[in-house]
């Protein structure tokens, strides 16, 4: 796929010891700062920001990494942003690189017994949610209108049947505003972590009133040519397969829309549909199209798959892989048995695992132990995490060979400007007296000329090399 994708992950943290109530949040933040400082100052895996990036990002809050990505503290979470990725495998590798970066730091600091990083999107006690944000580079010509976005909304609402990470229980965010008499059925398990928190179809904010499509216009590249589609509704996936398929299918859906080849479909009341699909463990997943006809989420996905086969078969290896696996998966999902897809999808793997435990231990779905297991599924520590056992034992499909997995935290993806940024980070690490500003779209050193990097699909390796060669410090070791 000739495109750029990227993923931002806000990690949760589980601290050992007795709970200290709200004081726990301060403990977490102190721990985050220690880990961040270790990554930048001891491990020298990147360079800390010297400038104020934004009102809530003072100098020292975070920085860019050797892999071209970014680590920082945002809204009480450690957040990792992958570098710009050109292939699905690069995206998966960069995503796992973030996990490895944090876990290596924890281990090296000897904090393994004190803190666990949890790659999920909710806690079970409050209404807190935190994000997994997907980024897709699209053309400025993308039909970014309410009418033009109907197919994208239909796609996004129904894709959770394979992108959801699953969770025990439910959250009713609107109950915090007004308590409604409830005749709703109890939700013991649902397929998505974020569905309960999506309350709008379109909106520009990212912390409140989360929407199916976030409309913030911040391309971080040439604004004349590009738009960055920024999606908040997805879950943090542990599964490499689910991560790759999520990005692959979503990019294909966007390409179909941009080319005017997408199925002409919209979904009635998509916010409600988002929640009802997530809560429906019968796997019927019924939605209504704009004419009021009832169809299933699998049917909607099949419409997009058929269009993808028609328009993009043979386009490139990633596209062909997506088309093949998408089709197989939809066939399996239509059989309505989570076991059949538990080797590829997080929600199904978690459901099967917890259900087996529940039956073996004879505990009910309301037992808080199951919430604890839900969390532990997302623990990134291979010595503790439940998902990691599924991977290690071959019960869940992996995409990354071990040799590539090891490179994610310090190896930039190919064919993108992350390569040039990575060279710049390395140069600055070698010359600590430099002053610098690094942004996604450019670099500036010693308050000199700005090297703009507005084309994400260009590596800028030569330009960055020349830029540093022109500076007055010992010759670069190219």
């Amino acid at each position, binding site marked *: 796929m000739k495109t750029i994708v990227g993923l931002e992950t806000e990690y949760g943290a589980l601290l050992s010891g007795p709970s200290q109530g709200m004081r726990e949040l301060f403990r977490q933040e102190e721990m985050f700062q220690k880990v961040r400082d270790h990554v930048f100052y001891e491990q020298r895996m990147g360079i800390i920001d010297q400038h104020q990036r934004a009102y809530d990002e003072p100098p020292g809050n975070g920085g860019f990494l050797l892999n071209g990505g970014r680590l920082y503290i945002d809204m009480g979470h450690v957040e990792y942003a992958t570098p710009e990725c050109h292939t699905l495998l690069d995206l998966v590798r960069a995503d796992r690189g973030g996990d490895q970066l944090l876990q290596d730091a924890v281990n090296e600091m000897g904090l393994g017994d004190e803190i666990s990083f949890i790659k999920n999107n909710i806690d079970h*006690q*409050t209404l*807190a949610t935190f994000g997994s944000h997907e980024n897709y580079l699209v053309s400025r010509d993308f039909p970014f209108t309410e009418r033009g976005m109907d197919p994208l909304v239909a796609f996004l609402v129904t894709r959770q049947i394979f992108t959801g990470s699953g969770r025990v229980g439910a959250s009713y965010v609107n109950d915090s505003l007004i308590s409604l008499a409830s005749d709703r059925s109890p939700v013991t398990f649902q397929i998505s972590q974020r569905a309960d928190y999506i309350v709008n179809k379109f909106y520009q904010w990212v912390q409140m009133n989360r929407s199916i499509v976030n409309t913030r216009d911040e391309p971080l590249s040439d604004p004349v040519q590009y738009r960055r589609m920024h999606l908040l509704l997805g879950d943090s996936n542990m599964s490499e397969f689910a991560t790759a398929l999520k990005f692959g299918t979503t990019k294909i859906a966007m390409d179909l829309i941009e080319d005017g080849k997408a199925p002409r479909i919209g979904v009635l009341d998509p916010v409600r549909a988002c929640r009802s699909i997530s809560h429906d463990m019968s796997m019927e997943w019924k939605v209504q199209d704009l004419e009021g006809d009832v169809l299933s989420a699998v049917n909607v996905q099949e419409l997009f798959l058929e269009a993808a086969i028609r328009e993009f078969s043979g386009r490139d290896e990633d596209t062909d892989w997506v088309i093949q696996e998408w089709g197989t998966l939809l066939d399996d999902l239509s059989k309505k048995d989570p076991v059949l897809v538990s080797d590829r999808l997080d929600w199904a793997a978690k459901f099967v695992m917890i259900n087996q435990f529940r039956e073996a231990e004879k505990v009910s779905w309301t037992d808080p132990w199951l919430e604890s297991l839900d*969390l532990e599924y997302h623990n990134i520590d291979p010595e*503790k995490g439940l998902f990691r056992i599924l991977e290690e034992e071959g019960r869940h499909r992996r995409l990354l*060979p071990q040799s590539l997995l090891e490179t994610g935290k310090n190896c930039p993806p*190919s064919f993108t400007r992350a390569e040039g940024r990575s060279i710049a980070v390395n140069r600055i690490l070698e010359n600590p007296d430099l002053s610098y500003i690094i942004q996604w779209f450019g670099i500036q050193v010693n308050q000199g000329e700005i090297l703009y990097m507005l084309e994400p699909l260009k590596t800028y390796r030569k330009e960055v*090399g020349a830029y540093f060669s022109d500076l007055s410090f010992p010759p670069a070791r190219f």
Partner: protein
Amino acid sequence: MEQPMGVEFSPDRQVVPGSPKKDVQKEGPVPKKPDVHKGTDRLMDRMKKVDPNQSERYRQRTGE
């Protein structure tokens, strides 16, 4: 261009963008069908060791 010290660029395989499928095949066969019974003991052992009350301690700030 020689790569700078400390930076690892992707190997040349990515001159042609790879795909998940391609690399999985290099690494060897992967399970196509789930085997829910395989390795259950190790997983169950780890699940039993999870503190039943840890979700009570897990309180996060709302993020984005």
